[in-house]
């Protein structure tokens, strides 16, 4: 294990702003924090932070890493490297792979493989139903014992209400989080984008916000009925958010997530007919985007999950009916949100960090990540000053395309440590004369 010193960083975590100080790391944990922490510490390597922001590495409760079976899109090595490049130290991988992660053996093999990669930590989700078919429950207890931390058929809504109820009952007993992809398939029908003025003008089949809102209501009712911790993935519209808000107000153990793209893009993005913008649930109206932002300010939103959903470029060069849903974003999530929400003053940086750190930790019942002595050394160093355009050619993800290509962003992670080891480091000259040692 390396002994590492981060000098003169601006330290912020969920407990507050700790000002500029040094952090020492040894044996995978934080050993010292403070202006005198470096005294007597023999660092194998010193990182000159020069006032950049050091903060706990982010937690992503929602990423599609595509392994097993879809390695042409992404695999654990590329996906967890991309996550670390985005400042994420922990990723919950979705189970809609080929085959789906519905057997304990698959969970075990993913965990084992990820552990040897030295990138972000993997905490797999497991399927709710066998084969994601929405018919028969998987063995939650065995999946949990193998390392699964969440139960979800994400990608495919659970249409059968009785099955969802049973899933919630089991999950409540086992203390597992059930994450839901809440869309009513019959209302969604063949929709490839948000239904509204834009879809009608473009002549593309629409997917109405009601398809999401009615299913969010059902899933919140299941949380109320069973006491299970239900995490609503990717809430995209006002109506669905209002439903979540209503149930939260009643004390129901429901939590919710929004994604970077639903906070920054609207359905107007489809006007150029580029399937890169085809996601599920769809990009909504400008009013919905504004509502999601307001919901964050009011504290209704628990976490930002990326829903990083890589595909091959060729798959996204199909027509809009046949191109798959989803876009890659885990490497740009923080810079994007920092630039679009924090820089203009919409959101304080501490609130954005909460949605990537303490928020998701609380959803999962994990300890809040802290820059404290003895805490795991999962940290990321963020450059809030330099502006750099999004260049998909530099992505560590296999999906080298982006809705934000060319967009100049600030807030890029320059270094991510996981268990005290370098999981990502940006190889660019920096203004302080750089990392040395």
């Amino acid at each position: 294990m390396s002994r590492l010193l981060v000098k003169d960083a601006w330290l912020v975590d969920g407990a507050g702003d700790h000002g500029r100080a040094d952090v020492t790391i040894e044996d995978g944990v934080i050993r010292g924090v403070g202006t005198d922490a470096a005294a007597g510490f023999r660092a194998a390597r010193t990182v000159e932070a020069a006032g950049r922001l050091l903060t706990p590495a982010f937690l992503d409760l929602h990423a599609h890493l595509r392994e097993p079976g879809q390695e042409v899109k992404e695999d654990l090595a590329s996906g967890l490297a991309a996550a670390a490049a985005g400042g994420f130290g922990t990723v919950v991988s979705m189970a809609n792979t080929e085959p789906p992660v519905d057997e304990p053996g698959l969970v075990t093999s993913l965990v084992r493989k990820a552990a040897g990669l030295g990138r972000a930590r993997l905490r797999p989700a497991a399927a709710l139903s066998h084969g994601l078919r929405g018919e028969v429950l998987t063995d939650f207890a065995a999946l949990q014992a193998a390392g699964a931390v969440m139960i979800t058929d994400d990608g495919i809504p659970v249409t059968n209400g009785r099955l969802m109820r049973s899933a919630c009952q089991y999950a409540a007993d086992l203390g597992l989080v059930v994450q839901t992809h809440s869309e009513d398939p019959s209302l969604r029908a063949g929709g490839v984008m948000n239904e509204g003025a834009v879809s009608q003008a473009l002549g593309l089949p629409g997917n109405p916000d009601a398809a999401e809102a009615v299913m969010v209501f059902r899933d919140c009712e299941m949380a109320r009925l069973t006491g299970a911790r239900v995490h609503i993935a990717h809430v995209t519209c006002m109506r669905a958010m209002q439903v979540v808000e209503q149930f939260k107000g009643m004390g129901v153990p429901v939590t919710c997530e929004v994604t970077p793209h639903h906070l920054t893009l609207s359905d107007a993005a489809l006007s150029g007919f580029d399937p890169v913008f085809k996601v599920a649930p769809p990009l909504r109206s400008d009013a919905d985007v504004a509502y999601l932002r307001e919901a964050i300010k009011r504290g209704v939103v628990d976490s930002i999950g990326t829903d990083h959903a890589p595909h091959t470029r060729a798959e996204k060069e199909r027509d809009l009916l046949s191109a798959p849903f989803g876009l890659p974003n885990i490497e740009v999530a923080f810079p994007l949100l920092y630039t679009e929400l924090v820089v203009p003053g919409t959101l304080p940086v501490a609130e954005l960090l909460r949605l990537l750190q303490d928020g998701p930790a609380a959803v999962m019942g994990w300890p809040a990540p802290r820059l404290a002595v003895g805490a795991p050394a999962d940290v990321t160093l963020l450059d809030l000053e330099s502006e750099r355009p999004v260049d998909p050619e530099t992505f560590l993800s296999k999906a080298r395309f982006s809705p934000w290509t060319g967009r100049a962003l600030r807030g890029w992670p320059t270094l991510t440590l996981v268990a005290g080891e370098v999981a990502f480091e940006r190889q660019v000259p920096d203004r302080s004369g750089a990392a040395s040692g």
Partner: protein
Amino acid sequence: MATVRVEIPSSPTPRKRHLLDFEGWSADDVGALFDTADVMAQVLTRAIKRVPALQGFTVGTLFFEDSTRTRLSFERAARAQSADVISFAAGGSSLSKGESLKDTLQTIDQMQADVYVVRHPAAGAPHQLTHWTEAAVINAGDGRRAHPTQALLDAYTFRQRFAGFDGFTGKRLAVVGDIMHSRVARSNVELWRKLGGEVVLCGPAPLLPPEVAPQVRHTYRLEEAVEGAHAVMTLRLQLERMSAGLLPSPAEYVSRYQLTERVLQRAHPDALVMHPGPLNRDVEVATEVADGPRSVIRDQVANGVPIRMAVLYTLLVGTR
């Protein structure tokens, strides 16, 4: 072969233009195109129905969705101007399965067509293709979005057949049927308004969402739509709409939305009856109306060729 002078000015440097919808086309542009179509229509009345106007050009028809009528009409329009034609039909074939649209196009692009005529089930596919080829692209129907040459031949037919035609201003087109799924309706709204006319859309509520063409009047009542209209266009009703849960039954549709002689009495005395085809006789339109004196349905089909000749000519050679 006799050379026919085509009486429109030629640009010294031909500009590549697409026809994806009517964005960027003015009423004057469309009027000039109609004038070109008049010349083309004359050509088609000659003993030898062929001019060398597009000799040396290659027209590629790319049909990703089954269509016989539109494809034949374009191919006829190309050959009548001595263009070479290459045809690609992917509807149901395995050729494009799993292959990206871009890959498919770039394979075909090796044939070096000058213009592609594209029909695709996905809205926007012709727009996507313009990013990947140097050739001009003509939209021959994309999903629910647009079918500009159909709208052109509809307006051209109206201009030709409406008694004492003196312009589109003040003329009202009623479009009746499955508006939501109709590219013909959307293109007609776009073009008819550009030419100065009015449009009213009519259909059952599940097929006429308020967000479709919100700039024109909507009604769920056939009688209201037809009242005073100068042209009534009925659209083909796909019988799948019943199984999709959108409509109760063909009988219900017939009783409320079929265009009959009785309803047509409410229209302008010189009103024309149109239909983009193919026709469901006695579903959306009564046979007596479809075959009656006001029907210009056959003229629409016939005008498809000169209009498409004019479009090809305009994009490949002429200025608009």
